[in-house]
């Protein structure tokens, strides 16, 4: 999956993956058979918005609205999505 992420694409969590807030970890986690990923703050905020409905463009806009003071947010969000696709945490919705 080397294609560039486009703003009109819609992603959802990969099948059988679960995303939740963990009080004890003080952060979001991604759960799947045989493993778990603890997401750092920024990654958690991005993956939280990957709901199988919002487009990439909407996710970027949503993040910008939530964190207006963060510079270059769009590049960070896209990089995070690319990483998540590469790791198969999220998949493209048809």
């Amino acid at each position: 999956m080397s294609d560039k992420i486009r703003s009109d694409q819609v992603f959802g969590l990969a099948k059988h993956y679960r995303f939740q807030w963990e009080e004890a970890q003080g952060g979001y986690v991604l759960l799947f058979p045989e493993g778990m990923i603890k997401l750092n703050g920024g990654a958690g905020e991005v993956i939280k918005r990957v709901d199988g409905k919002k487009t990439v463009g909407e996710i970027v806009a949503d993040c910008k609205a939530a964190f207006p003071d963060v510079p270059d947010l769009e590049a960070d969000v896209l990089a995070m999505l690319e990483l998540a696709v590469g790791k198969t945490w999220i998949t493209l919705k048809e």
Partner: protein
Amino acid sequence: MAQQNNGASLNHPPKPFWLLAEITYRCPLHCAFCYNPTDYATHTQNELSTEQWIKVLRDARKLGALQLGISGGEPLLRDDIEEIVAEAGSLGYYSNLITSGVGLTEKRIAEFKRGGLDHIQLSMHDITKDINNFITDTNTFELKKKVAAMIKEYDYPMVLNVVIHRYNIEHIGEILEMAEAIGADFVELANTQYYGWSLLNRAQLMPTREQLEKAEAITNKFRERVGNKMKVFFVVPDYYADRPKKCMNGWGEVFMIVTANGDVLPCHSARSLPGLEFPNVRDKGLEWAWNESPAFNKYRGDDWMKEPCRTCPEKEKDLGGCRCQTYLLTGDPEGTDPVCSKSPTHQIILDAIEEAKNPQIASRPILFRNDKNSRLIADGELSEIVKPFHALP
């Protein structure tokens, strides 16, 4: 400032991510490679009650546990498994039923789905009926195929666990093809590690280095072909590694086991270690067990390490390996894991590999995991077989 180790502070113990609930030691299979303690038969009469298990789940969740493995023995032998699963679901665990498939019915799997069970890990043994039935000492080949279909039908991720040993390692390509054909999402090719029953049967189970390398090459080729469709884990057996494994990712760091009778352990075979008294949930509860008990603090961090580990530049990578393996094989629970080529006792591993090549030793009958053999071992009647080890495996 607190001493840092493996990302955790010693003054504030780490949190357990994983809880493995070994809810019963009873099992309809008699696998030659089972890692359960060889004297498990002494723990089949005093299993925790449903209420006690529910309290364990609640208390562990409060401590931070998130991944739950429900295992055994065969967990489906308990009649209250549906209640346990439902409690885990409502507590927000990511829960996994680890099963041989024996006892899984349509009615139960539907109940698990309702209760919020996240996945089912099914053990498979071979593509041939003969080897499946031989190594498990049961007639379960057809049943496993039916259960695999049921797991798929209920839209569970298909997680197959295949323990690899001399009798099936040559079939690894066909095993992977079978996994693909039944639609597996995850396949764990778990090369036998030698604990419990598999340690007693080590010479009969251990493949050669050549077999292992071939199996790994076939696995890599398969991975290239299927890509992301199926995740394949190949667990390298530590006897053929140059460095030991970071056992349990560190003693009391992320992993907690509660056994059928309520003992709280940092790893499966910890009870074989000398001079440690493990807490039981019937006494002081999980929080004390994890945070305060002397047993859980015994090998946290690296204060206990001796040379050559103490000054080894790689000590953070493997924390000196496995305490149980080191003790069972060398008699020193604080020594360097003999798997390590820097260990003064490494010859023990080389000898074990040679022993497995000796046709006379390797053709000795396998001691299957069953109640009769377990009682014989517990009563000291098989001392010849247990003699090479410093404690009961």
